[in-house]
């Protein structure tokens, strides 16, 4: 297994791209492609990745790169892989799609490639909204989150649906490998990318990738926020290999989801009631993933006592 020290120095996704400081997507791409290596061909659907990595006449990719549209990552990977195989070339074919491009508009195309078990690596960079178009709700947006299409209004505050369970949908295709990753856990990240690279058939890596403007957070705290997501249970690190699920990192004592939420402007408007509802959702997920068989359900976090006041500063940020 590759260690951090052994990661090649050469960046195949080079400096000079125009992603925001602290972009979780750019960090994930750069580290994933270092593990995947030169014999890789990449498809990126419509997303920030196309804009910040390929705006002509500049390009950050040192491996073959292809882009056409938004909803077709699965199909483009299938086509590329078929051509390489026909030509007798050994290439890791990898797609980097966002949550909109995977949970929503690209779900069908992804499902097709997964169901056919095509020999491709599908990476979903999940920043929980349509960020490239300016922060609109996707199927991956968490409960309560502000986006421009789930605004904090007088009657309705933020997203009213809980994050879609994409992992189970992908795993239901009975593919060889599905894993969730976070750049806050780099060893786990590297190990899973390397593992996915060496498995044949359809592999899916689900990466948790903070978006600085979309999450309204401090660009210096990208890694920290992913760690808090994992510690609170908002994001879980696991893998499913040939149907066998394994938790790859189990947090110690469950941390309040509020600590995670308050790092980000997109959640700061949330009422106690909403925070509590989200906490309950997290507890359910926590028990599903971490609970020992036969032991009682855990939800150690008491509902928040104080109503989180909407301050003047937040009004400026999000409107009323």
């Amino acid at each position, binding site marked *: 297994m590759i260690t951090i020290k052994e990661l090649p120095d050469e960046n195949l996704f080079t400096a000079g791209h125009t992603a925001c400081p602290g972009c979780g997507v750019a960090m994930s791409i750069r580290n994933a492609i270092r593990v995947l290596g*030169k*014999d*890789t*061909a990449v*498809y990126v659907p419509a997303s920030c990745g*196309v*804009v910040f990595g*390929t*705006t*002509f*006449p500049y*390009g950050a*990719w*040192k*491996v*073959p*790169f*292809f*882009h*056409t*549209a938004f*909803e*077709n990552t*699965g*199909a*483009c*990977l*299938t*086509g*590329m892989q*078929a*051509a*390489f*195989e*026909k*030509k007798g*070339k050994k*290439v890791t074919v990898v797609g980097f799609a966002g949550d909109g491009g995977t949970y929503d508009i690209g779900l*069908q*195309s992804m*499902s*097709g490639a997964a*169901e*056919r078990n095509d020999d491709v690596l599908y990476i979903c960079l999940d920043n929980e909204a349509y960020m490239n178009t300016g922060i609109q709700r996707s199927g991956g947006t968490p409960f309560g989150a502000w986006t421009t299409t789930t605004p904090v209004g007088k009657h309705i505050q933020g997203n009213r649906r809980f994050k879609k369970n994409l992992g189970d949908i992908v795993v239901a295709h009975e593919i060889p490998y599905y894993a969730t990753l976070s750049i806050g856990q780099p060893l786990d990240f590297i190990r899973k990318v390397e593992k996915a690279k060496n498995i044949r058939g359809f592999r899916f890596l689900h990466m948790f990738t903070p978006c600085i403007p979309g999450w309204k957070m401090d660009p210096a705290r990208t890694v920290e926020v992913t760690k808090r997501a994992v510690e609170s249970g908002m994001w879980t690190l696991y893998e499913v290999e040939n149907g066998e699920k394994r938790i790859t990192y189990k947090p110690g004592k469950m941390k309040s989801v509020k600590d995670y939420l308050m790092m980000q402007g997109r959640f700061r408007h949330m009422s106690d009631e909403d925070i509590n509802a989200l906490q309950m959702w997290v507890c359910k997920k926590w028990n599903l993933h971490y609970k020992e068989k036969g032991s009682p359900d855990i939800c150690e976090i008491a509902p928040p006592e104080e109503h989180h006041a909407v301050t003047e500063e937040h009004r400026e940020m999000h409107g009323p």
Partner: protein
Amino acid sequence: MKKVITGDHAVAIGAKLCRVEVVPAYPITPQTLIIEHIADFVNDGELDAKFLTMESEHSVMSAAAAASAAGARVFTATSSQGLAFMHEMLYATAPLRLPIVMPDASRTLGGPPGIWCEYNDSMGARDSGWLQLYVEDNQEALDMVIQSFRIAEDKRVLLPVMPCLDGFVLTHTVEPVDVPQQEEIDSFLPPYEPDIILDTARPAMIGTFMPPEYIMEMRRQTAGAVESSKEVIQEINSKFAKKFGRDYGGLIDTYRMDDAEIALITMGTVTSTSREVVDELRQKGEKVGLIKLRFFRPFPSRELKKAVSKLSALGVFDRSISYHGGGQVYNEVRSALFGMTIPVINHLAGLGGRDVTKEQIMKMFELTRKAAKGEKVNEINWHDTRGETV
């Protein structure tokens, strides 16, 4: 070797003879027989290709684009709703200069839903950068799949090509077809060897984000490629004719036009029926002729101008309608002939797959004759419709 086969079968054999390497496929009537035959060829070991059963036409064209960008010779086929569903990807493939060949089994695009022949499916793709041609019989369908690859892959062109064959009239009708030998096709169509592909040995970025500083040049290059395809089409038509003895005329074909006073422009299978009508009218002493519009993209403006220069009136057959007025071919022809004084009238017939009979075509000539005489005639004429009609 002569075989009695359907148009779809002829197209599939054409693709096999071209040694296509990747075939993403999705069923839709009346194209489905094409991909079924290809699946048979692959599973019987007659064709060494990657046959990909995609989950939609959008994914078909996406996989086709990606496979072509990775350097493979790519073939697929579609029709109607399927073509509409992949519409976005048609626009992606042409400017990226991916020489995919995809026959369209011409079928009405709903609503209202129907499955029979109409050109309103492919007409919607006329501004996508794809070259488009319309064939008249199963022999031409097979031959044009072969020519299409040669046109598409020519370095002066590098554009995708869509040969259109009339749904059911050709796709599901058997005709005798002279099937070329594999060696003959191998010597006519060299392997596809593109300069820039997705290759880890020489990494390239294809489909990068284009700011306004560059996108116009891309458009201009694509337009230039469509323009230069005219010369290539004629050249390849001649080479094919020399080798196989079948000369289709290139961009257009003409019939009894030398001394014609009036003529009709047709596309697809209606051309065959129209030829018979021309012969019958000629026997009666009427100086009528026929122009078969083979390529709609590129549009053969120059060739048409020349062909109609001595006419006193021209009728244009359309099997689809642009709702602002008349058919698409009519509008293109009018535009091409701008500045010429001859009356041009439109004949709409056979929409939704309705039979276009000899009687209807007789009527088309009759009305065109009236226009030639300066009599009052409608500009747009709907043939064989209920209610007010001609």
